[in-house]
């Protein structure tokens, strides 16, 4: 079973996402800020990261930059989850991001994009 790391500051979203991912047969764990998210990335090396762009301690692109510098975790794909579509322009050019999901999250969209990145 593939594992997915959810990094989001809102616990409600995490919980709902976890239920949903479970139905897709993915295992998931979560972090509520950027730093602990990076720690978990390094320690547990998930197959995919679902990242909320706005975090209390750092912005999504900063986290991505740090991830890029670390060879261990560099290749773990990231799907950005954001409420505002404008964020999409920020890091598009750099090939650090696998895909985007815009809030509110539709289950079909979520499933399709995750499967496209890491398979079923």
């Amino acid at each position, binding site marked *: 079973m593939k594992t997915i790391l959810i990094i989001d*500051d*809102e616990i*409600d979203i995490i*919980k*709902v996402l976890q*239920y949903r991912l479970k139905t897709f047969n993915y295992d998931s764990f979560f972090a*509520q*800020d950027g730093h602990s998210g990076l720690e978990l990335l390094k320690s547990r090396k998930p197959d995919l990261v679902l990242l909320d762009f*706005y*975090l*209390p*301690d*750092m912005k999504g692109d900063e986290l991505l930059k740090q991830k890029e510098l670390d060879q261990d975790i560099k290749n773990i794909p990231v799907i950005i989850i954001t409420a505002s579509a404008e964020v999409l322009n920020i890091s598009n050019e750099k090939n650090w991001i696998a895909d985007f999901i815009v809030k509110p999250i539709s289950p079909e969209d979520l499933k399709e994009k995750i499967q496209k990145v890491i398979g079923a």
Partner: protein
Amino acid sequence: MKIFYKLFIGFIVLGVVPFIGYGFFSFEQFYKFVIREESKVLQGVLQEKVKILNNFFYKFMNNANLIAHSPSLNQFLSSTIQKKTDLENQVKPFLHYLALESKIANALIISKNGTLILGTGKFEQCQCNLLNDQIQDPLLLNCIKKTFKTGVSTISDFFYSPLVDENAIYVASPIKKDKELIGCLILQIPENQIFDIFKDYTLLGNTGESLVAMQSENKILFITPIRHYPNSAFNLSIDFDSKLATPMQQALKHNMGHGIMVDYRGKKVLAAWTYYPLMNWGLVIKMDLAEVLKPLLKMSLYLILVAFVIVTLIIIGIIIFSKKITRPLKILGEAVEQLKFGNLDKTIPIKSHDEIAVLATGINEMAAGLKQSMTSIENLNMEIAQRKEAEKAKAEFISIISHELRTPISPIKEGISLVLEEKVGRLNDEQKELLNIADKNSTRLHLFINQILDFQKLEAQKTPFRFNQCNINDLLNEVYEMFKTSATKKQIELNLQLSKDLPFVFCDKDKILEVLINFLGNAFEYTKEGSITLISSLKGENIEVEIKDTGIGIYEEDIPKLFETFKQLNDKRLASRKGTGLGLAICKKIINFHKGEIWVRSEIDKGSSFYFSLPINKEKNT
């Protein structure tokens, strides 16, 4: 006052007044000059008259002396009667000749006892003794007596002589033989000869007169005919103390002088006067002041005419000059008036290179500038109007959207509630957790929509306010009770520091409570440990409320953003805070609506104090 009148008066004062002043000064000088010169003439005439009189009298006295000392007369008087007839034939023609030559009225010779020996005219046939008291002629008698007494020539007064039945002057000269008085020669000077002297009015113009008078008891008696009064001789008399004939009064007081006086007619005259001691006469030469001043008046008239013409020309000049100065000012004034009414297109024509032109250029430039400003203001106004329109549209949009959002929220919430309450079947734990999440977030969405609507209403001033007299301490107590339990739960000390006897404020209690709840809600959210204190105090004419916490504090750069809507703070510590960003903006609107102030003081990691003040209600408190 108009500048024109100011200039006009100024120029009149500077130009015309000195001119007129100079005119008056010159007139006065000229007047003095005329009086002085004419006085000199009158004095000259007077001296001339005196000289003539002197000559006249000395001529008679000399003649009398000469005849009296002639040997033939001496012989005639001392000879016997028989020889007398012969002598008479010799002396008589001589006397006649004398009378004719010297224009003597009469000549007579008397012996030392007074017997008239020989006479001409009225005395020719007279056989009388002149020293006889029966002869009623005091003038002649006194003259003879005086001559006999003094032994020298004597001249009588000028007076009426009954013997000749006219006014006469007698000159008596003693006839002596070996220093012994043997007789007397008497010559009568006729009045018309005296009169003739004073009938000469040369240099005296049309009104000039020569007056001769003597004092007779307490009167001034004029003794010659006068130009204006031909019968005056011995007819005209004036009281010595009267206010008339003042120059003659001076003369008879033995004074000599000249000046402006009042004559016997009561007219003002320029006169010269002197006393003539030989005859005890007063002499006055005078001329009417009116005649003296006539050339002056004539000249004055001429001068006034010239002055009038000059003054008129000056005034016309002043008017033209003043107009020339004020006309451009008037044009400027009219132009400025036009500007006042917004006619900015009118420019002032500039014809000169003076200060006015500078001013006009300034005004033209100002008008151009104003026009430009007006255009930009118009544009700005248009922009503002457009923006207002946009704001309004936005507000309406938000209002509609919010209302539309509210509607679906209700069934969502209600549906979740029904399932959660297990009204439609039992739920397992996972179901409950998910539904709780849904419920919590739908409530959050509901609150958020409500706040947007509240704020929109406040901004559009559509929120109804119910103002009442209230005690702020009551409100603080109320929120204290509200938050007491959550304080205990969070293990935070909640304190009340209320000033006693605070005056009332006039406010909407519910709205102020909303502010207090918002403040306290924030305080609780950002305070992990320590205390929260509710403080009330009186500051001047305001009541101040402070909600003080020992929380995380706020960065200084974020403080100005606190009361604005949807402002993102840079503070990373707040990223997980899921507020609407409207709470404090609503508080500010509410407090401002109460004419109060809202503000924050904060120190990072030490805590924040949120304040608001409300003006005390003076009317209700007194």
